[in-house]
């Protein structure tokens, strides 16, 4: 059965936001890194990843229903 995540990209990463991000399909065993590659986000533009409100690593495995948020480095004042 297909699994979906709710995807949110912040700041400069919004340009990579796919159609239907609020219900974005993932494949079994997908990691955050696999997801970012599929979205075409350069790895050096990824700084913070949150899944269900908790910071995780690139190697974290995603599951259906996860809320995923990705931040680039942000330093403006």
């Amino acid at each position: 059965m297909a699994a979906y995540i709710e995807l949110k990209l912040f700041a400069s990463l919004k340009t990579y936001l796919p159609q239907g991000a609020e219900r974005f399909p993932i494949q079994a065993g997908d990691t955050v890194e696999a997801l970012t590659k599929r979205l075409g986000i350069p790895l050096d533009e990824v700084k913070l990843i949150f899944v269900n409100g908790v910071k995780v690593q690139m190697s974290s495995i995603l599951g259906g229903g996860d809320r995923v948020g990705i931040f680039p480095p942000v330093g403006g004042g």
Partner: protein
Amino acid sequence: MPVKAALSKAICQVSTRATHPDGTPYRSIRMKDLEQLCQEHGLCGREAEISALEAGVVPERYARSMKVYSLEDQATLLRSCVCVVGMGGLGGTVVEMLARLGVGILLLVDGDTFDESNLNRQFLCREQGLGKPKVQEAARRVGAINSSVAVHTHQAYLNEDNAPSILGDSDVAIDCLGGFKDRFVLEGATKKAGCPLVSAAVAGLSGHVTTIFPTDPGLQLIYGDAQSLPAAGAESSLGCLPQITTLLAALECSEATKILLKKRPLLRHRLMVIDLDDMGGEVMDLQRD
């Protein structure tokens, strides 16, 4: 009569009866009467205000704060010292709020001067002030809105050498810097000084804010290794807008006042992320429990 008792008596004599909008009575003292007391008793503004609060009298300028803060809280704020590093979009708003809240001693740090491109978001930047040092304009603004506050300016960029003397005995430091490198310098100095730090950063209409105590992992949880970072982040391509800088500055002040008043800050080990594009905001855990 001891000096303190004489001062307290003088304060009570010039204080007047007043009521809050909900009808609660309080004793009030006006600025002109406090100024007179300062002259007669050789006090500075914040000392006179602290004396009034200790005598149970509210300096009228803080009257609308007193339903949230007790007299003791307000006196604590007036005794507190906050170091604000960076007088840009975040810093200008932070300084404005701290001065209005009556945080008694402000250490203001920035080596920069105002430029036209600052006008879109930096509240301290005005057309007549272009080219002037940011800290000078900040001190001018504080003096105009709350002359009781003691301001110490440092027209310098923070570095490892000057940070300890600039921070001094600050009760809280607020990171209002741009870029990454200097944030780590500030964090290192606050850790050495045992001083809590509140830190925010923005890009476009997004941003985040956190609170770091000296023993906490801190910025590395947000940015990773300092050496791995570019010179600037997403703000270099998106710019910065006043809606987000002002909102995050307010959150920084909220955390800072909680720390000053010994209340539990809400963003320790956590990061509040905000995106005004979709009005989304969420508090994230930076560490798993």
